[in-house]
């Protein structure tokens, strides 16, 4: 394993695991606390479908993935704003259409589908320097946004109505968050894959949520769990020659199960 670290591809993979994991860990906290995981799922599949269409048409998969993700945010974001209906039905319809588009695109591709499959499963071992830079930018934007608007976002997760009545531009911040979520998801497609990326956004913050009552600590733990999932997953998959994205997600799932088992909140619920 130590020898493997001398290879450029492995260095890139480690950097991607740390940087991408950190970005997913931060964004995931807001997705969990705003209770919008289904919106995130729809957006991650929009990015995936957009990238597949990009491969099919010869347009940059990254660009089309990003545009599709932003489009999905604009489309499904208002669903979360509506209080008079359950958004899950409309989200379910959008989700199924996006998966249909993605798999239709894959079916129409001629020749080897390795690029499309790498978007599906991720290909962290093939990332180049430019991919790492893009990941770095996305993660910096996610962390910067969370730090700069920390108090406002905390008010929004407490109650969007109270945030609005206090004069906080809650709608603008909510949509900015969806937009940043979209960027983070799209740029992590190559790392972990379109089918699995959202697990990395949901599992680490859910694990962090179980073990702390402090938002600041939840952000830190979420990042640590996401980075640990990526690093452990990368190493295990390298040692056992297993698909990296899948192992990363499984590791994040194990961390979540352990945190649930030792959760003081769970003990409190039982006692109540």
């Amino acid at each position, binding site marked *: 394993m130590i020898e493997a670290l001398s290879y450029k591809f492995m260095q890139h993979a480690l950097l991607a695991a740390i940087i991408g994991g950190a970005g997913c860990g931060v964004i995931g906290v807001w997705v969990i606390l705003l209770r919008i995981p289904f919106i995130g799922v729809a957006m991650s599949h929009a990015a995936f479908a957009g990238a597949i269409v990009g491969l099919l048409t010869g347009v940059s998969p990254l660009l089309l993935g990003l545009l599709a993700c932003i489009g999905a945010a604009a489309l499904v974001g208002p669903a979360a704003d509506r209080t008079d209906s359950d958004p899950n039905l409309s989200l379910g319809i959008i989700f199924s259409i996006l998966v249909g588009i993605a798999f239709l695109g894959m079916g129409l591709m001629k020749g080897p589908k390795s690029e499309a499959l790498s978007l599906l499963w991720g290909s962290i071992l093939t990332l180049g320097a430019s991919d790492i830079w893009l990941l770095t930018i996305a993660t910096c934007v996610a962390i910067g946004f969370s730090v700069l608007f920390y108090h406002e976002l905390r008010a929004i997760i407490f109650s969007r109505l*109270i945030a*609005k009545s206090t004069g906080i531009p809650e709608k603008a911040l909510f949509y900015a968050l969806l937009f940043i979520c979209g960027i983070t998801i799209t740029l992590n497609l190559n790392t972990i894959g379109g089918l699995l990326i959202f697990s990395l956004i949901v599992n680490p913050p859910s694990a962090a949520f179980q073990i702390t009552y402090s938002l600041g600590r939840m952000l830190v733990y979420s990042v640590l769990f996401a980075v640990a999932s990526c690093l452990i997953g990368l190493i295990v998959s390298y040692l056992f020659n297993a698909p990296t994205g899948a192992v990363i997600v499984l590791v994040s799932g194990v961390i979540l199960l352990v945190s649930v088992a030792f959760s003081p909140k769970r003990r409190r619920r039982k006692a109540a």
Partner: protein
Amino acid sequence: MSKHSRARSTNRHGHPIVELEQVRLAVNGIPVIRSVTLSMNEGEFVLVLGPNGAGKTTLLKLINGLLLPSGGEVRVFGEGLTSATAKQIRRRIAYLPQDITVDTRIPITVREVVSIGRLAHKPLMARFTDRDRGIADEAMDLVGIAELATRPFGHLSAGQKQKVSLARALSQQAEIMLLDEPLSNLDPRAQRDVCDTIDCIHGETGKTILLVTHLLETVPRSADRAMIMRQGTFAGKVDIAKIYDDRFRRSLYSGLAETGSLTGPQGTKP
């Protein structure tokens, strides 16, 4: 005399601070508010009593600009409420919505909830200063929850949560407080406790307060006047001196039972 009491003595019976002139609101063509006219002076404490669905919550949302009227005029602080002015006006109004649903496991402490009120006075991305922290601490002191400051919000009882909401409203240092059913879902003892806290806030700060409720058993004692609302309009006013009389309240209840409203022989036109 505390500084809040001093503030009250100068504000009491001041100039009109909230004015609604024949305000109407229809949602999807259905009238929710029908020609409501109301004037509140600075420092005044008004109760609006009415059954569920009377339009009380909508009335509050019209005053703080969360909703804009279909007709008539809303003036707050002497300024007409429009989509352009609503945001600035809203910062000067503390609003306690009814029944906010907060996940009991949400990672936020009592002090952090109270501090949300300070954001009304801060530009985006600003940090809290010692002054902000001091104001939040003072608000918690006033409502008697200082010892809960570091507790997770989700661990509190319903009555304690309502007091935290009142402290949040106080830390906003708003001139007007709009309280939407602050006593619902509380047991009788907690209702009395929250009522006493509201009386204490009004007595100490002299803030203009509009409280809407469908409960009559327990109402704050420091209110200046009470109105009855039903079917989207004011149906009468109640003699505030009588509202604390059990027999009178029972007669209001029987009026409600018989007519589906709180009007009856006791109600008079405002």
